[in-house]
């Protein structure tokens, strides 16, 4: 029916010291789509995201089984270059975390790590990334300022741009708008709508309205299991599963 999935999660189980966070989960992310993940607290949404760029590996008690295929290759294979993987799968966190440097230094850090030193390339990538998150006009004269001087909404878009300069293939966002005002949220959502032309986007959100507004498909997680996934319009109007319906009309969670 569709193109090959960009990311294919197959029978993935994740646990932290015996506590299971994801149970036998299978889910595809296709090229050029925005997949939203909704679900109540501790349903495994964040663990799922952090499994896609192997950030969970940092947790001492993390263990997993199953596969996460990126372009058909298991990212948990022993010969996978994790550093390279994290450039291909870029992550944005719930709370904007600008590193304690200038706006510009934050933006070029990933590129410098990747070995890109040419000033023209760096400047070009920075400008393009800032424009794609509608931040260029606001900060083009403030690039040397500490990133912390920006407002919360600007900081979050900066963090998004900081990932975009690396031109990742997959963009994973963990409740990127949870601390933002409606106007900033709108700007981030507009940016995502544009970005899906070039990236696969996985968006975890606690805000079901945001999922309804700015995703193509939506997956509903509950207690570490995938309950249902489908086109966003369908999942929100005619969910197949009773539990999805209960969640959407606010019976729990």
């Amino acid at each position, binding site marked *: 029916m569709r193109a090959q999935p960009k990311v294919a999660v197959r029978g993935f189980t994740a646990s932290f010291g015996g506590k299971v966070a994801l149970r036998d989960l299978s889910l595809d992310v296709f090229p050029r789509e925005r997949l939203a993940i909704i679900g109540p607290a501790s349903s495994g949404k964040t663990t799922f995201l952090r499994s896609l760029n192997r*950030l969970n590996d940092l947790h001492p008690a993390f263990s997993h089984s199953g596969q996460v295929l990126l372009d058909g290759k298991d990212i948990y294979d022993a010969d996978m270059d994790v*550093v*390279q993987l994290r*450039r291909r799968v870029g992550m944005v966190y719930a709370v904007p*975390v600008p*590193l*304690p440097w200038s706006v510009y230094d934050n933006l070029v850090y990933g590129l410098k790590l990747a070995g890109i030193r040419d000033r023209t390339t760096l400047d070009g990538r920075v400008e393009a990334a800032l424009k794609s998150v509608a931040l260029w006009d606001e900060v083009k004269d403030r690039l040397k300022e500490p990133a912390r001087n920006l407002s919360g909404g600007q900081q979050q878009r900066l963090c998004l741009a*900081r990932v975009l300069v690396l031109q990742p293939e997959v963009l994973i966002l963990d409740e990127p708008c949870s601390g933002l005002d409606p106007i900033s949220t709108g700007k981030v959502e507009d940016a995502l709508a544009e970005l899906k032309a070039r990236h696969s986007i996985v968006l975890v959100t606690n805000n079901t309205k945001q999922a309804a507004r700015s995703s193509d498909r939506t997956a509903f997680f509950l207690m570490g299991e995938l309950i249902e996934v489908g086109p966003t319009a369908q999942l929100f109007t005619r969910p197949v599963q009773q539990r999805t319906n209960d969640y959407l009309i606010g019976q729990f969670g």
Partner: protein
Amino acid sequence: MTRPSPVALQRVVVVALWSLATMTIGVLLFIIVYILAHGLPHVSWGFLTQSPEYMGRKGGIFPMVVGTVMVAGLAVLVAAPIGVATAIYLTEYTREGRMTAMIRFGADCLAGIPSIVFGLFGFVFFAITLHLGLSVISGALTLALMVLPTVVRTSEEALRAVPSAYREVSYGLGSTRWQMVTHVVLHSALPGISTGVVLSLGRCVSETAVVMLTAGSALRLPHSLFDSSRTLALHFYMLSREGISMPNAYATASVLIIAILALNMLAYWLMRRFVAKVR
């Protein structure tokens, strides 16, 4: 007897706490003023730049200034890399377990040993067993061991104060662990680490027992690391303890106290920068 009203009690408490707190700073000020008043009149350019004569009864303290800088400076040059590396290993490269508990326990034990014991050890091990003699290098190595736990613990605290989110961001942007540590963590922790190093330098400068037993008390200008040398603190001790010259003892103490104050102010300034940065 009636109980005092809460408002009256409050007043009494404020006055009592204020007086006691003022006493702390008062004692410090008294000591500083007392020593400077007795010593500063005898401090001159010549005092700082000339060699002592008649065991220090006349002349200056130039060899002691050089000796202090050499002994304390070398001690910190040795202790800082080892201490910071240990702290990086403890915070970034290992998980909590037997090994980290052992290293920490070791550092704490080391911190609890009286300096005279370090002095004795340095004398027996560096000066005699390793044939380094009473020398700048014996003194510096012994002092390095003495301040090592301070460097480890303060560096560790500074490293732990770096938000873990910084580490995740760095990893997320494609850094290796070492790049993460050098670019992000050390960068943020540097003022805190420097504070610990500067405080250690202060302890080396003011230490007496260790240097007496390991660096010796030669009055000559040390020409190499293997020469014996007398530090300012020891010179002050000798001048006063052996009744050679109280005015010169006070003058030496004045120089020492001003140097220590300057170092502490530097540490305080670095600490404030650190706090401003982490916030």
